[in-house]
């Protein structure tokens, strides 16, 4: 099966050849299968919006090729690409009512008026905007405008739906409800969607696969589970997950039947060597040092373990984040009930070998997840 969207080594340079050259997207390869929802996730300036605009046709591709449904489209006018888009800035047409704004996206499909009305009513109900259909854009709130913009994109039967920060302006409760509905709508109508977001909850909830971008480079393109459990490098490891992964520089010492990961002169994580594959033991011994990553959810408070001193305790309503001084740095642990340690208390931590992520200190690439080579 050919991919619905195929980005072939695309590059975007702004102001090429000048002192202000910005290489916004570098050698990006990406395939999106038919019926798939893919999220481009990254902080601002990572190249995700540039990528989206190149797909939609509002930015030229500096080099590379964009195919939709096996058809090369990167030289076509936006109108001919078969792409529907929801804009971050809503971009509703002020003289038209909300109903007209949404219906106007259907013009090219040449439907009967009754069919248009039905579709508009359906999408309005889905997005909770039925009551404002006859108002004008400047009479409604930003969150409502954003839903109209989203509706205008979703109502079409395009080859590809492109959603730029589709829910950034919505209130949290509404966002949670709409995420489920929109995902169901996209799957039900077998649409293919690519969305840009900086909100990893949104990406995790909506997307089948997530492309993590940073500095114009694709860091990892994988399912939400793999991004969490098998981060490809330090960047993805630290970027995905809330609160962020704890990172420590360590030196590996393989002594007899134990593997010690020394974090500080007097502190080491010590495991039986059976917890690590032989290849991994050889690999980490070669390196002068490695970086180890531990998810806060995997840092356990135990009776026996490595000593740490609590300096902050935050109760978030359903979990506790405990920050402690550990091995010359700081470590965060998440406990799923109201935990008691107060700032200043001594606690003991233990970390299972199964939960360790080991990264190459120089390249930042992942070496192992849970004791097995990555």
């Amino acid at each position, binding site marked *: 099966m050919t991919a619905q969207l195929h980005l072939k080594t695309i590059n975007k340079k702004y102001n090429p050849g000048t002192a202000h050259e910005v290489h916004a997207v570098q050698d990006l390869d990406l395939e999106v299968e038919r019926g798939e929802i893919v999220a481009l996730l990254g902080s601002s300036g990572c190249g995700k919006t540039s990528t989206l605009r190149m797909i*939609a*046709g*509002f930015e030229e591709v500096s080099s590379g090729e964009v195919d939709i449904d096996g058809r090369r489209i990167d030289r076509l*006018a*936006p*109108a001919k*690409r078969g*792409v*529907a*888009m929801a*804009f*971050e*800035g*809503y*971009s*509703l*047409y*002020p*003289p038209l009512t909300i109903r007209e704004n949404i219906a*106007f*996206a259907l*013009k*090219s499909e040449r439907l009967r008026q009754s069919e248009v009305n039905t579709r508009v009513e359906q999408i309005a109900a889905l997005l909770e905007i039925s009551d404002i259909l006859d108002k004008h*854009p*400047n009479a409604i709130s*930003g969150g409502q*405008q954003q839903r109209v*913009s989203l509706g*205008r994109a979703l109502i*079409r039967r395009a080859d590809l739906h492109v959603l730029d920060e589709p829910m950034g302006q919505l209130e949290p409760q509404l966002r949670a409800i709409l995420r489920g509905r929109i995902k169901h709508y996209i799957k039900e109508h077998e649409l293919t969607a690519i969305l840009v977001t900086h909100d990893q909850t949104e990406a995790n909830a909506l997307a089948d696969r997530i492309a993590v971008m940073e500095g114009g480079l694709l860091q990892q393109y994988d399912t939400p589970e793999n991004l969490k459990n098998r981060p490809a490098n330090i960047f993805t490891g630290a970027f995905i997950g809330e609160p962020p992964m704890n990172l420590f520089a360590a030196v590996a010492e393989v002594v007899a039947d134990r593997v010690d990961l020394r974090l500080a002169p007097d502190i080491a994580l010590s495991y039986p060597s059976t917890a690590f594959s032989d290849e991994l033991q050889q690999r980490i011994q070669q390196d002068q040092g490695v970086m180890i990553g531990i998810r806060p959810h995997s840092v356990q408070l135990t009776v026996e373990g490595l000593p740490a001193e609590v300096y902050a305790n935050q109760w978030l309503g359903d979990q506790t984040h405990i920050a402690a001084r550990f091995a010359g740095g700081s470590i965060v642990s998440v406990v799923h009930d109201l935990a008691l340690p107060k700032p200043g208390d001594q606690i003991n931590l233990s970390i299972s070998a199964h939960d360790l992520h080991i990264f190459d200190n120089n390249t930042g690439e992942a070496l192992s997840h849970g004791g097995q080579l990555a």
Partner: protein
Amino acid sequence: MDHTSFLERWFRRAALSIIIVFFMFPIFWIVLMSFQTNETILRSPPSMSFTPTLDNYMAIIAGRLDSNVASMGIDFVNNLMNSIILSVCSVAVALILGVPAAYAFARHKFKGSEDIAFTLLSFRFAPPLLVLLPLTLYFQEIGLADTYLGLVWVYQLICLPLILWIVRGYFEDISPDIEYAYRIAGHSWFSTFRKIALPLAGPGIAAAGLLAFIFAWNNFIFALVLASADKQPVTVGALAFVTASGIQYGQIAAAIVLSIAPTLALALWAQRYLVEGLSLGAVKG
């Protein structure tokens, strides 16, 4: 306004009154003059009491200038027509050329676009007389001197940069995403320009057109040098009131009132569009 004190409101009114009197007094005085004879105008000290007369208007419309020495024909109505033809045509040409150009400069950053835009603006810096002398020679050579076509062409020096730069700003204020949204729904860039950009920038275009019209209407030097009697607009035609037997103040005043009238009417009519233009910011949402 509820928070302003009595004193503040009073000051505001006084200041506004002073400004209005300062700016409106010459106009007011001219309107009074247009209903007086030369004798009552030149009384010393000047007085507000006089018997109004329509003689000045009659003379101008009839085209006969009667002074105490002789009677001569003037063609002020023809001048008024020339002004209308020249201004309307110049603004029309400038809009046809300038609006698409403004859109191009606002939306498409191409190599040298800023330089071209600035060159067009720089037409406004050049002292008109410096341009006129060589232009007169060329125009005589190619037969454009003393034609409406030639004058409308030269008037582009006034109208085109004005429209280009004002309208460009209005296009830049429209979020490009509104246009993108229209284009991605299956429309060409030209229909996007026509259906989205033009209507949204409409108030700005109206404002720029009005300003250009006023500048074209008030232009004196181009027509003075390049046009002969039958193509002259009111600004140049008014010179005819300076006669050998004296200056016909009453008729000048009447002529001024008549020549202000069209621009004033246009400005009053266009006012609602200008106000809409100022509220264009609402587009951004």
